[in-house]
């Protein structure tokens, strides 16, 4: 009996004897997790969130969410005698008077940046490997909702200390609200309880920041993690890995040990960052002052894209029938992020519609094997990245010695041209890599040894790829193109008729573009178009997976 099983049995019996519910627990502990570094990205988000809850709770003990004006006479002498809100002065007190307060503030803030950063890279991993495909579309949607709510959570937290930068951020938020056609002014008055900034906003944001959104996030994250368990983790292609099994290590003790270690790693990185790198030094910004604005007033990075969109937008303001339509704020506030979030949410369904692929997928795609998706993903990253960089254009201009206007114009052009080029280049690169893979499969690995044949010709000796590599290489099944409605067909399928049908067909041709599918070591058989059988990608039910959850540990 292996050590694993002993450990499992020991723990299982111990718990079963006491809780009488071990069969479920046992299944939980035996849950198989595939091993890949990119599967830990989501965990960064999970653990930083837990750290945010802990440090945030500490901060609530000392933070005063109040706009009441006070005169500061604290430890930080450069602001001695400055009038400020209680929110700001209590944050100064957290930073300078409360034992460990500054460290807590800094951990809280760094954790917020890592939380959202981790969500972003996690989502990219899920997208580029196609992990969102059936049956995991809901979990993808939950992820998108978590992402968008987390951004608001960060924005509201950033606004709480009522310093110059957070006030500037709130002013922009208010401007965006006001730019909503017709209802804008009402929305703004509703949120701020009257004129900007007013007295209500900080207490309101406080309740939203420490209570409402954390509760919603907690619920969504729980659902997200539960679904991940329930649907089982996807895995990369490899030897012995099929759409119907999960190959990896059992939850207990292997995965738990690893993930536990990872938690401490994350905590350590956060503690180090917060000890050595200063973040949000609100005492330098000074209290919010509506008549002041500072160079370098940026939001946190996750709001950078909104800031960039605002900076990039030409100044369009229309006056129609006594109403001001501030398109210079409304469009940039909604359009770019709308494209990213809306497009992201709809993508799994668009892809299904275009490919006609309704099968379940538990084996991940290597990004090169889905060139169109990968191309679109990279294009989206470029699109977002350009807008995001434009949000820091003054700092970039300052440090690279180029003019501010130039950065804006570069951004305006690249935001349109960049994604197109990125899509095209990425797709070519993917196809090139596919070709390389096919070559490897068919001809094996070049050994660099040249032999002379009896007839005088030279050949290079090759050796076949390893079994595991072969399994990876032949994983690309390719997608079958949708059949074009034949001219003599009496009634084409409903989904293929009309404008939408034609568009679907055209898109389908783009999506299924790929080079001939590889056929394995030495199998010379050529496929006409390289696309596998439709049957190969559909209908592998859940039942198979449930039973075959195997740790291959015996």
């Amino acid at each position, binding site marked *: 009996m292996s050590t694993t099983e002993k450990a499992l049995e020991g723990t299982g019996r111990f718990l079963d004897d006491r809780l009488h519910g071990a069969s479920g627990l046992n299944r939980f502990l035996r849950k198989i997790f595939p091993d890949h570094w990119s599967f830990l990205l989501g965990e960064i988000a999970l653990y930083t969130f837990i750290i945010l809850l802990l440090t945030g709770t500490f901060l609530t003990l000392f933070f005063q969410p109040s706009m009441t004006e006070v005169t500061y006479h604290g430890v930080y002498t450069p602001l001695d*005698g400055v009038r400020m809100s209680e929110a700001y002065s209590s944050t100064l007190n957290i*930073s300078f008077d409360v034992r460990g307060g500054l460290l807590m503030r800094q951990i809280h803030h760094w954790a917020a940046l*890592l939380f959202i950063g981790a969500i972003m890279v996690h989502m990219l991993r899920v997208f580029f490997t196609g992990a969102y495909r059936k049956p995991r579309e809901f979990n993808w949607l939950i992820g998108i909702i978590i992402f968008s709510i987390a951004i608001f959570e960060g924005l509201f937290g950033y606004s709480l200390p009522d310093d110059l930068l957070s006030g500037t951020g709130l002013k922009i938020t208010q401007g965006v609200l006001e730019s909503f056609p017709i209802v804008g002014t009402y929305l703004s008055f509703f949120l701020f309880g009257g004129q900007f900034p007013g007295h209500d906003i900080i207490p309101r944001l406080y309740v939203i920041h420490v209570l409402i959104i954390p509760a919603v996030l907690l619920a969504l994250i729980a659902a997200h993690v539960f679904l991940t368990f329930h649907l089982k983790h996807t895995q990369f292609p490899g030897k012995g890995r099929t759409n119907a099994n999960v190959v990896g290590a059992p939850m207990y003790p292997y995965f738990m040990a690893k993930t536990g270690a*990872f938690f401490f790693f994350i905590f350590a*990185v956060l503690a180090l960052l917060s000890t050595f790198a200063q973040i949000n030094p609100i005492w330098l910004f000074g209290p919010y*002052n509506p008549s002041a604005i500072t160079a370098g007033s940026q939001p946190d*990075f996750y709001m950078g894209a909104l800031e960039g969109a605002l900076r990039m937008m030409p100044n369009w303001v229309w006056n129609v029938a006594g109403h001001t339509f501030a398109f210079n704020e409304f469009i940039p506030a909604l359009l770019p992020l709308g494209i990213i979030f809306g497009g992201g949410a709809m993508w799994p369904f668009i892809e299904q519609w275009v490919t006609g692929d309704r099968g379940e997928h538990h084996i991940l795609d290597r990004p090169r094997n889905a060139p169109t998706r990968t191309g679109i993903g990279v294009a989206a990253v470029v699109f977002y990245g350009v807008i995001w960089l434009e949000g820091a254009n003054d700092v970039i201009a300052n440090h690279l010695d180029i003019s501010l206007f130039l950065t804006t114009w570069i951004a305006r052009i690249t935001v349109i041209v960049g994604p197109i080029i990125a899509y095209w280049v990425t797709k070519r690169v993917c196809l090139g890599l596919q070709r390389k893979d096919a070559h490897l499969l068919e001809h094996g690995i070049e050994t660099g040894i040249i032999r002379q044949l009896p007839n005088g010709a030279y050949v290079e000796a090759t050796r076949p790829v390893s079994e595991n590599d072969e399994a990876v290489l032949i994983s690309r099944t390719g997608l079958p193109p949708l059949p074009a409605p034949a001219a003599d067909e009496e009634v084409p399928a409903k989904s293929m008729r009309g404008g939408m049908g034609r568009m679907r067909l055209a898109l389908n041709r783009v999506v299924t573009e790929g080079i001939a599918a590889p056929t394995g070591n030495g199998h010379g058989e050529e496929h006409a178009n390289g696309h596998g059988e439709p049957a190969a990608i559909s209908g592998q039910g859940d039942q198979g997976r449930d039973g075959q959850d195997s740790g291959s540990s015996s």
Partner: protein
Amino acid sequence: MRPITSLRRHRVAGYAVVLLGLVGAGAAYTAVAGQPGTAAADASPVSRQQIAEGQALFARTCASCHGMHAQGISGVGPSLIGVGAAAVDFQVSTGRMPGKVTGAEMPPRPVVFSQTQIHALAAYVASLGGGPAIPSGDQVSPAGANLALGQQLFITNCAQCHNFSGAGGALTSGKFAPPLNHATPTQIYEAMQTGPEAMPVFSDTTITPAQKRDVIAYVTKVRGQPDPGGFSLGRVGPVTEGLVAFLGGIAVLIFAAMWITMKRRES
């Protein structure tokens, strides 16, 4: 509470040193330059000899661009009549003048003149048409200044170009507001008084001399103070923080994840 007390001790110590230095420099300056504060136009405290010396220096190093009598050469250098001693002192003591390339916003270079020579130049230019004088040591001394007011004045008047901590920033049409880390109190005063290049003039009616002192006190105080939270990351705001979050946070954690998953269980 240890770190705070030591910080405070530190801060007070730094304050005292700066103060002592400034008072010393001020005293030395007053001794050299004579009666402070009087407009240089009446030229009484500066000797004829100083002016003559300045004129000679000017003819040698400045006239090629500003003309023999500082009347200006169109397209090369502006007229200096009426710019005042303060402008000359600011431009030359920060290394901006004598300019090498004609064009806006001369990048500061090593200062080429001694203090005495600069004062001679300043006295000469002031003798041509008055203008703001070089401030005295008392005028720029942060001793007893109102820091709180200085903070507010700085944030409302200067931060939009020089950033909240004086780290500098980009302006429109390719111009830059420099960081304020090196300017001496006198230079800060003169910058406000003369408004070099794209910087507006903050005349004594906009920011009174006493308020100028408050601004100087705030700028010099804040730039010298340690960063209680660790490395300052340039004090330029959230941009570098975001960079560090990705390079020092996310990237490090991804490497950690790779490391943790590197050792596979043998099956």
